[in-house]
């Protein structure tokens, strides 16, 4: 398939960045094994910039690579991001994992990415029923921070309101504690402790994850009820107020645990309680690291 105008713009920016030496690596998308698949690509030479491409199949959050030591060693890096992924870049800057000076953000206007299972059946059009839930609630079709912006050639996403994103949250909220427990026990029962959710998450960057800490071993590593619940709850808790909602954990999960229900519920609660949304401002103080006299304290009886 020929280059689109978007691809050409993208390739030009990457080529210039690499040629001028402003960056020594550009992380972006290349065409995949079939038309409905995009794959991450790492461009270090200007002449390879032609591999870069972008389409509604660019589902991956490439910010995940920024935490890798083998990527970090390139120093100055250019990265192709959608609005959602870019929030991860911001959160990483907020948490001192990368420096704003070392990153060139190539922001892509995005009207939604198509669910992989639907794309695999041949769907190439962005529509309400084809995109991920995160796209339906997206408020950052244009990234909040960028050095370059490439506008979309795709038609805008039209929302009829018939598809309710994250409808599971409302269902969960109406459940009793026992019902919720039963629901999650069933879901977590599927967990095989592969930690794909962690590996796919751009904000799970600890070099030693808490689950790998032994002496003492706070979290059971075996894949059974207690250990599974411990892992999934601590993962969610460590991301509360931090998760930017890219959905990569859920996409990576081989046993289809609805992780975004937890993530979005946490994000919703954090917003309602503290008025904070993650990844919107590199100068904001992350909610986890802030305490003030006006914090609610109804839980102190």
């Amino acid at each position, binding site marked *: 398939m020929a280059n689109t105008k978007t691809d050409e713009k993208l390739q030009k920016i990457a080529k210039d960045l690499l040629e001028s030496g402003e960056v020594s690596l550009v992380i972006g998308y290349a065409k995949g094994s079939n038309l409905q698949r995009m794959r991450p690509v790492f461009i270090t030479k200007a002449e390879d910039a032609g591999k870069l491409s972008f389409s509604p199949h660019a589902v991956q959050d490439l910010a995940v690579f920024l935490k890798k030591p083998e990527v970090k060693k390139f120093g100055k890096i250019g990265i192709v991001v959608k609005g959602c992924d870019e929030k991860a870049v911001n959160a990483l800057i907020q*948490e*001192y*994992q990368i420096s704003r000076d070392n990153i060139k953000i190539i922001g892509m206007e995005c009207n939604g990415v198509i669910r992989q299972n639907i794309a695999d059946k041949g769907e190439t059009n962005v529509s309400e029923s084809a995109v991920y839930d995160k796209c339906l609630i997206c408020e950052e079709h244009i990234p909040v921070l960028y050095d370059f912006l490439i506008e979309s050639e795709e038609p805008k996403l039209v929302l009829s309101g018939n598809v309710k994103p994250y409808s599971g949250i409302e269902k969960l909220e109406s459940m009793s504690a026992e019902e919720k427990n039963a629901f999650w026990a069933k879901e977590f029962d599927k967990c095989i402790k592969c930690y794909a959710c962690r590996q796919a998450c751009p904000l799970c*960057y600890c070099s*030693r994850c808490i689950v790998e800490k032994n002496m*003492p071993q706070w979290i059971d590593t075996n894949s059974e009820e207690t250990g599974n619940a411990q892992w999934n709850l601590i993962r969610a808790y*460590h991301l509360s107020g931090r998760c930017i909602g890219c959905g990569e954990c859920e996409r990576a999960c081989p046993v289809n645990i609805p992780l975004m229900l937890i993530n979005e519920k946490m994000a919703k609660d954090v917003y309602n309680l503290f008025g904070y949304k993650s990844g919107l401002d590199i100068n904001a103080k992350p909610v986890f*690291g802030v305490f003030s006299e006006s914090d609610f304290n109804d839980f102190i009886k």
Partner: protein
Amino acid sequence: MSRIGVFVCWCGSNIAGTVDVEKVREEAAKIPGVVSALDYKYMCSDPGQNSLRNIIKEKNLTGIVLAACSPHMHENTFRKAAAKEGLNPYFVEIANIREQVSWVHEDKERATAKAVDLMKMMVEKVKRDRPIEDVRVPLNKKALVIGGGIAGIQAALDIANGGVEVILVEKEPSIGGRMIQLDETFPTLDCSSCIMTPKMVEANQHPNIKLYTYSEVEDISGYIGNFKVKIKKKARSVVEKDCTGCGECWNACPMHKNVKSEFNVNLSERTAIYVPFPQAVPLVPVLDRSVCLHFKKGGKCQKCYDACGPKCINFDLQDEIIEETVGAIVASTGYDLMDTSMYGEYGYGKYKDVISGLQFERLLSASGPTEGVIKRPSDGKTPQTIVFVQCVGSRDPEKGVPYCSKVCCMYTAKHAKLFAHKVHGSQSYVFYIDIRSTSKGYEEFVRGTMEQDGAIYLRGRVSKIYEDEGKLIVKGADTLSGNQVEIAADMVVLATGVIPKKGSDKLAQMLGISYDKYGFFTESHPKLRPAESSTAGIFLAGMAQGPRDIPESVVSGSAAASKILGLFSKNEYEVEGTIANVNEATCVACFYCQRVCAYNAISKKEIKDRSGKLIKVVANVNPGLCTGCGACVNACFSKSIDVKGFMDDQIYAEIKALAV
């Protein structure tokens, strides 16, 4: 292999009355690693401590658990006893079976079971204790006193007389604070300025005291022994070292009679260039740029400059920032009076002759606006009848503050007495709720005001004050006779409530000390550590802590000074070794620990290889600032911070001990 000794204390019947101490001892003896278990009536007594020391020796113990009272009480006692036998003092753990068990439970069986659990947890903890060394922080033997009222001056003088350098910072153009505004002082009626000015002069001339007036503390960082202080010396527009205090400048100032005198509480006027009062220390005027014509009208007026003999007026002087390093700080920022105008029914601010107690002090003062003759602000006539209203704002949770301002009962009695002395044949009425006169000579003083000076005391509140034909009609209740009272007065004096100095909360935040909901600084312990703030190295004095009278303020100033002299008698300050500790291998430098640290104890540390190349950045704990609170431990996602003595594996072992 652990060799643990468990000591179960009866605390007389305090513990033994509710907890089966023998059972706790028996259970302890069963735990692997426990080589000695003992119960005793009072472990903290000399024989108790001796038996502990003997068993350490005999059984060659590696750790000790005391099932006893709160570690707040005797942890130190037992640590010292253990240290005498060569055991690291941090190998002593306390299971609190008094405050957390016997005092809060009634059912002996269940209380005993809980006591056993707590003891077991501590046995597992002590098995995992590592030796901890206390941290030694070097001390800069210099002190900062913030606020030059009587408390601050007393603190500064005592510290300076102890041979230690002091920096005394005062916001106003002169030191002296509130006390120098007062006329005569209860209960001895000695003149306030007569006893205050010698202290002010002494502070100014003391070789160990560096005085910064018209200056404010701008920023404070650091910790005990090593506080970095930035002091803003506001532009005075007068070169202090050249000024002779002759007064030619303020006499020449055309802004005469235009600016209300703060010192005289708006009862007189001052010029733009002024000294607040004739005995000001230093006797160097300040040019108030907010009202000076030179600054307001483009630099034309320079009458003060023309009049000045030594030409020490300099309109171009700028604010100066002075940086100092000190080892200890006294916060003595004093108080303000509540804004009484919110009591609309009393007409303060509406009727000129309704004044505050502090204004009445100025009317009484020989150096005041009326040179000590009591005159009504409205027409300058001498009042024949004055109504004094106590508890205006104080003890009034609805509109004011719930606390008692403490000094009003006494100064009102003094006001009524001095009024009787100065205006013969006059009559005063005092509305009060209760009379609080508990210090030496106070009750006799109030009695004297009633019995010798004829003041009529009415127990009740005033409901309304209004003006009628040149008189102030005061309506109130006399609850003792059950009658409504109406008095036609020439003047009304309101005993206004005391509140912390404006901005003291900001200062407290800068200092990192705690304050109560009103803004008064809180003591480290209200009874046993009344001079210490919640932060090591910062001490408190005077009304900034709460309402108190002059002798109490002086005592508190001296107390703070003696604490500082005691601290400075050593070259180093020992900080408990139970502070945070970073695992640099696993730290990913997200610095949530730094964000949540209330003590600014965490900084960034670069780890470099031998060639100087940066390997990684990690969190670093400043032992002088860390209090071991553990907030960072909670914030660390990768569990890369522990607090020594409360290590992760110890907490885990404690929990596990409960499960079996």
